């Protein structure tokens, strides 16, 4: 029999109690299996970022540019409307709960790459009223359906990592095109009024490629190993090995979201 963690037990009994008022079987299925369920998973994608190796601005720039190119991410200059998939934040803002009064200033100011954590227990999926964002059963990626999203931005209120961006205006004029007016990639551009975020390059994974940011970092001399991507279900994958052998942290673990982006600091 599958061993249940205390969290899962509490959640299921809670869902059941709620269900007494509003349809137990329905609530139980939607609260437990569609969000938490890892039962049918074949893979569990994860990323490890080596903060020290990613200190080089060239590495982080390469990551960002590759991501923007591959995913047609617009470059909107206004920070209030900027679309962010992978970007820099200072260590003290990213790991605000893991610093103290005597953390060296140099570390506090170190830029850290951040992106969607593809949580095991994603709050954004829990709150979305249309299932426009969901956790893909087969590999744990938090996906977005841009055609279903109604643009209510509930997911943005729920995300503890500010990893989601809303298209306040039509993003297409802000996606750099080539001389013939073509967008950099085949990946569909978005319309205004929908939320978007990193999807671990699910379209590249389908073709057997790794996420563009990871590829770009590793191709750059000196950037090897700054970002590592792999399958947590495979004990021999590099991410599994790093997590086993090195000391890693992830963001705001006390919230119980179960981030799948880890950091070596």
């Amino acid at each position, binding site marked *: 029999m599958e061993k249940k963690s205390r969290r899962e037990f509490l959640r299921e009994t809670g869902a059941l109690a709620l269900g007494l008022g509003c349809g137990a079987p329905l609530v139980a299925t939607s609260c437990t299996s569609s969000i938490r369920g890892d039962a049918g998973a074949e893979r569990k994608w994860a990323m490890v970022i080596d903060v020290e190796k990613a200190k080089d601005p060239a590495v982080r720039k390469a990551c960002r540019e590759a991501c923007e190119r591959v995913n047609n991410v617009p470059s909107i200059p206004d920070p209030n409307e900027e679309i962010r998939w992978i970007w820099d934040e200072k260590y003290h803002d990213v790991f605000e709960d893991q610093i103290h009064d005597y953390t060296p200033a140099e570390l506090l100011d170190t830029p850290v790459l951040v992106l969607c954590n593809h949580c095991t227990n994603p709050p954004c999926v829990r709150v979305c009223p249309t299932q426009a964002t969901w956790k893909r059963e087969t590999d744990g990626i938090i996906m977005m359906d841009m055609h279903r999203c109604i643009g*209510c931005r509930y997911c943005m*209120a729920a995300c503890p990592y500010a990893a989601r961006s809303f*298209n*306040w205006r039509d993003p297409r004029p802000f996606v750099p095109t080539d001389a013939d007016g073509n967008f950099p990639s085949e990946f569909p551009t978005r319309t205004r009024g929908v939320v978007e975020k990193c999807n671990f390059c699910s379209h590249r994974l389908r073709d057997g490629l790794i996420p563009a940011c990871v590829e770009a970092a590793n191709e750059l001399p000196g950037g090897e190993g700054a970002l590592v991507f792999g399958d947590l279900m495979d004990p021999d994958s590099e991410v599994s090995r790093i997590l086993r052998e090195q000391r890693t942290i992830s963001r705001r673990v006390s919230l119980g979201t179960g981030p799948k982006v880890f950091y070596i600091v």
Partner: protein
Amino acid sequence: MLEAAFRGGKRYWGLLGVWMVLITMGLWAWSQQYVHGLTVTGMTQDVTWGIYIAQFTFLVGVAASAVMVVLPYYLHNHKAFGRMVILGEGLAVSAVIMCMLFIFVDMGQPTRVMNVLLHPTLNSMMFWDMLALGGYLVLNLIIGAVTFDAERKEAPPPTWIKPIIIISIPWAVSIHTVTAFLYSGLEARTFWMTAILAPRFLASAFASGPSLLILLALIMRKFTKFDPGDMAIRKLALIVAYAMTINVFFVGVELFTALYSDMPHHLHAFEYLYFGLHGHTALVPWMWTGAALTLVSVTLLLIPSIRNNLRFLGPICVAVIAAIWIEKGVGMIVTGFIPNPLGRITDYTPTMVEVGVTLGVYGIGFLLLTLIYKIVVNVRERMLTA
């Protein structure tokens, strides 16, 4: 009965004219938003909900507060509310419609809003909120229409309506509870993630809603022959006094937890509200105004001779409504986003377009309210003269 809405004096048409001006302005503002997107609002990647969701929150409370006349009348047979109940239900109907419109104008893709029902998602509080609000609207429409029709015919209401009325009582509580759950279930937002949010919402709703009802009753008896009665108004004032005092207590409980524990995450939001955080002081004047209005109105409400003096009651009710509106319609929503999960503080100020849309929605709500009350008054006036 309905034709009464098309007959009226200069004052009536003037009032309708005011609402139409607001609605026209609102439609124009909304067309700007529809064409250009939500970029025309003051909302940002950090503060993703603004004045619309805040008004929604405030008005769900107004809608729920109809229960404060329905419950005493139908459960406790409190006769004084006999002529007040229909006003409460009319207010609930127009408030729920405004709530729905405020959600609608906040959507990035308004044409897809039906996706919420096409893809029902039981783990989303927004889905439940939509059901709760829709159901509450239907309940109040049925109850209001059936009981008023019976009254008009001077017959007792049909017996089948009684269970529906009983259902509407917990349903009223549910709409504001589920609305609080929209916020209080988010681990990302410490300011909202407090178990007392739903009780607080209900307490403030039961203060602001009945206050509005008192004002409307005072206005109606000044300008029409219809009078809901001194007794009903004084009873409502007592309800306001209780609810407002409980609300102050709840806010105090919240402040204690934040201040005594001294945990930065809990403190930041209150610091931002009342003192400003790192030089960001956008809401400070609002919050102190709200605090002053609360203090003055609670004090006056607690003194029976002042509370029962209908001359003072009007201004006190205005103060209560303003205080709760500041609490929910200004402070509550925006502060949940401050600071953002990355420690960034972005102040929010609604744009003219947002203010225009907001006034337009209020215009629609008050137009509906005016029409409903006009029909009620007409029938009652005729019954008085008959």
